[in-house]
């Protein structure tokens, strides 16, 4: 194996005396291999990749040290004109967000054609043929039609295929893929991962694959570089890192990866708390009708954690919001302990309102930035007639319970990390002493290591308060980890509902099966590691 690209002791510093965001990073990419660069947000993995492409915004970030060797050329400080010859031709790049990576008002065929037009002498007809070939290679349906389509007419997966086709148009030596599947649904992710791997093998190119997901890493990596806070903490062959991680941080990351569920014991079937029957909801926007819920029927039992899993557009969030009264359903019934909630007058609904609470997805948006945390928690009880004094006292106790004691309550949301805010969100939901908690993607915005802690907390409180939890997520692994039962949704319909372990190991429905097939890192048996060091916890009150 020959080193295709070598990064030596690279440092990148923010302009105008800002912080150094990448510090002394070195790694190499070889021909015919996939190098995975793994790290959580802020690890500097993307900045390094942009430095390789010469795409750092000059007024914001600058390479201050080190070399990027491509063949015998040092790319650091290369004049702009030379870059134009390299980019596209020798390096291709795939970005994270397929929705924004394409020019919205240019036909996609033309966008790929541009690369050829720029770097080759092919005639227009030849170029078009080549683009169609490329579209075929990335398995786009109906290349001819795709050629004239605009990006908004394509699905996320299709767009990512276009971007890949673009990056590969000139068969570059190195393909840099910056979180190319993070924004995609799990089944699409599996397809794209397969595609990248397949093409890499076929063309024998070097791929730098940037990701935060060890599952993905396990599926495609030949070698791995782990980064943290701008530095490389560990590098090595995939097998070594995945199964015998050395550095505590790597170990901690791997430990936090949701593992395969063991399956809870089959508890005695409790009485149903909420019964949903034939629930329907259709959204009509701008002449388009979307059936978000189609005859959904299920029951949530007293004290159980019910997982609701589906890809984007499956209607799972709509269902959650319908149950909680934020979205009025069109038809069907939602009964709580026998009382029909659908169509109830707001005043009659009020007593039920406090029994169903929610933990939201985005920890940065779920707290009013202008209210103190304690206020946020106490607001509910006060609105329901609790005296201010009692409400505040109870709020403080709850914050303590979720691990935020001391003066935490008197601070404002921006003073907390994402994980801590999610804890506050849970405390707020608990303040009203609900019986059903709807957790809508409650952990998906968090880094893996934090995710695990919040899941633990959820598990604890649901047991402690005899709560029923509706756990909505796109991640089957996470759901399988904490749920008693799992419901799988697809395009507004309930596909399958069963015990978590059953769903995971013995899926009945074809779609569920595909979903499970697509879970990244399925073939990887995670080593049993105990997190030795929990950075987020240790710095909580730092």
């Amino acid at each position: 194996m020959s080193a295709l690209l070598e990064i030596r002791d690279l440092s990148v510093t923010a302009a105008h005396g800002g912080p150094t965001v990448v510090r002394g990073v070195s790694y190499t990419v070889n021909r015919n291999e996939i190098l995975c660069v793994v790290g959580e947000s802020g690890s500097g993995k993307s900045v390094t990749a942009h430095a390789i492409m010469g795409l750092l915004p000059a007024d914001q970030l600058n390479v201050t040290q080190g070399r990027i060797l491509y063949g015998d050329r040092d790319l650091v400080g290369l004049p702009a004109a030379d870059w134009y010859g390299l980019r596209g031709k020798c390096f291709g790049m795939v970005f994270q967000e397929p929705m924004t990576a394409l020019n919205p008002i240019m036909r996609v065929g033309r966008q790929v054609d541009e690369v050829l037009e720029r770097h080759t002498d092919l005639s227009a007809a030849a170029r078009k043929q080549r683009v169609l070939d490329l579209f075929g290679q990335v398995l786009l349906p109906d290349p001819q039609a795709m050629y004239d389509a605009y990006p908004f007419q394509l699905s996320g997966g299709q767009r990512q295929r276009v971007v890949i086709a673009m990056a590969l148009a000139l068969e570059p030596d190195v393909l840099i893929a910056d979180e190319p599947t993070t924004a995609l649904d799990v089944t699409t992710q599996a397809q794209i991962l397969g595609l990248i791997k397949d093409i890499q093998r076929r063309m024998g190119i070097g791929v730098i694959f940037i990701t935060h997901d060890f599952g993905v890493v396990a599926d495609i990596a030949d070698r791995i570089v782990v980064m943290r806070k701008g530095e490389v903490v560990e590098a090595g062959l995939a097998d070594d890192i995945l199964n015998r991680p050395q550095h505590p941080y790597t170990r901690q990351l791997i430990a936090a990866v949701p593992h395969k569920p063991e399956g809870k014991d089959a508890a005695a079937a409790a009485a149903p708390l909420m019964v949903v029957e034939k629930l329907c909801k259709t959204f009509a926007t701008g002449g388009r009708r979307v059936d978000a819920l189609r005859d959904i029927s299920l029951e949530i039992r007293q004290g159980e954690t019910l997982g609701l899993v589906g890809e984007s557009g499956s209607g799972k969030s709509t269902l959650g919001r319908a149950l909680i009264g934020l979205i009025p359903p069109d038809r069907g019934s939602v009964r709580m302990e026998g009382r029909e909630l659908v169509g109830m007058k707001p005043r009659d609904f009020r007593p039920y309102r406090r029994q169903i609470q929610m933990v939201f997805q985005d920890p940065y948006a779920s707290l009013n930035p202008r209210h103190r945390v304690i206020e946020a928690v106490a607001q509910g009880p006060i609105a329901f007639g609790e005296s201010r004094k009692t409400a505040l006292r109870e709020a403080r106790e709850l914050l303590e319970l979720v691990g935020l004691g001391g003066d935490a309550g008197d601070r404002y949301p921006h003073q907390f990390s994402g994980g801590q805010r999610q804890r506050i969100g849970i405390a707020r939901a608990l303040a009203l002493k609900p019986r059903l908690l709807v957790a809508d993607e409650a952990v998906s915005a968090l880094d893996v290591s934090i995710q695990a802690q919040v899941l633990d907390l959820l598990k604890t409180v649901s047991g402690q308060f005899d709560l029923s939890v509706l756990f909505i997520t796109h991640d089957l692994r996470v759901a399988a980890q904490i749920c008693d039962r799992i419901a799988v949704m697809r395009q507004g319909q309930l596909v399958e509902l069963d015990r978590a372990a059953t769903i995971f190991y013995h899926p009945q429905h074809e779609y569920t099966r595909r979903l499970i097939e697509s879970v990244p890192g399925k073939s990887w048996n995670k080593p049993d590691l105990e997190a030795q060091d929990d950075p987020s916890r240790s710095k909580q009150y730092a």
Partner: protein
Amino acid sequence: MKAFMQSFCRNKGGIMGLIVLALVTLMAVTASWIFPDSPWDIINGPFMPPLSEGAMLGTDTLGRDIATGIAYGSRITLVLAAVSTAVSILLGITVGALAGFYGGRVDQAIVGFIELFQTIPSFFLAVVLVAILTPNMGTVIFAIAVVSWPPLARLVRAEFMSLKNREFVQAAMLAGQSNLRIILTQILPNSLSPVIVSGSLMIASSILLESALSFLGLGDPNAMTWGYIIGASRSVLRDAWWMSVFPGVAILLTVLSLNLIGEALNDALNPKLARRRTT
């Protein structure tokens, strides 16, 4: 707050704007001490050029002092602009909040209404309103407010729509808070920064609008305003350039200072959007 102050102070334009605005305000407050005569008083010969004795900036066709007129004009200008902006902000926030918060039919109706107002050429509308309702302070304020509120209502509506779906607002709904309370304590405070920014820009455009109305002779006939002086100077442009130049500079500086303050506020309040909302 501290961060905001720091950020604002780093903006040279904003500081300059504040200084100019402070000077203009000072001029307005102290006008009657510095210039004890009424701006309508004929205290000198007509058509005296600037730097004449007793008429720093010259006199007009009747011998009224331009400097006095500008000083007293600043009072009317600032008060008119502030009041009309306050009225239109109130109107804009109310309408925008209703549309954004309730959505659906209410929103459709209100948006239709806003679009209607945005289609009507606003300056024409102001002119027609003042002309027909006869010019005085009240009608001028009314006309300026009527044509200024729609963009703000749009802005507030958009803010409310996005904030309404923000999770903390939904959390407040789940916490059983009343709609009014949610609007007032959860959404409104969080949508204020763009309102503050457009408020300062709206004051600036109110001044421009008011001066244009006065220029056309549609100001309150009892109020000495900058636009009025310029309007009166039009027929004697060749003979008395100072009559039009100085009040124009006063308008320019005041409007400029408000725009600079607006931009600085914008940069300080919405650092991420600093480059976006420049118009």
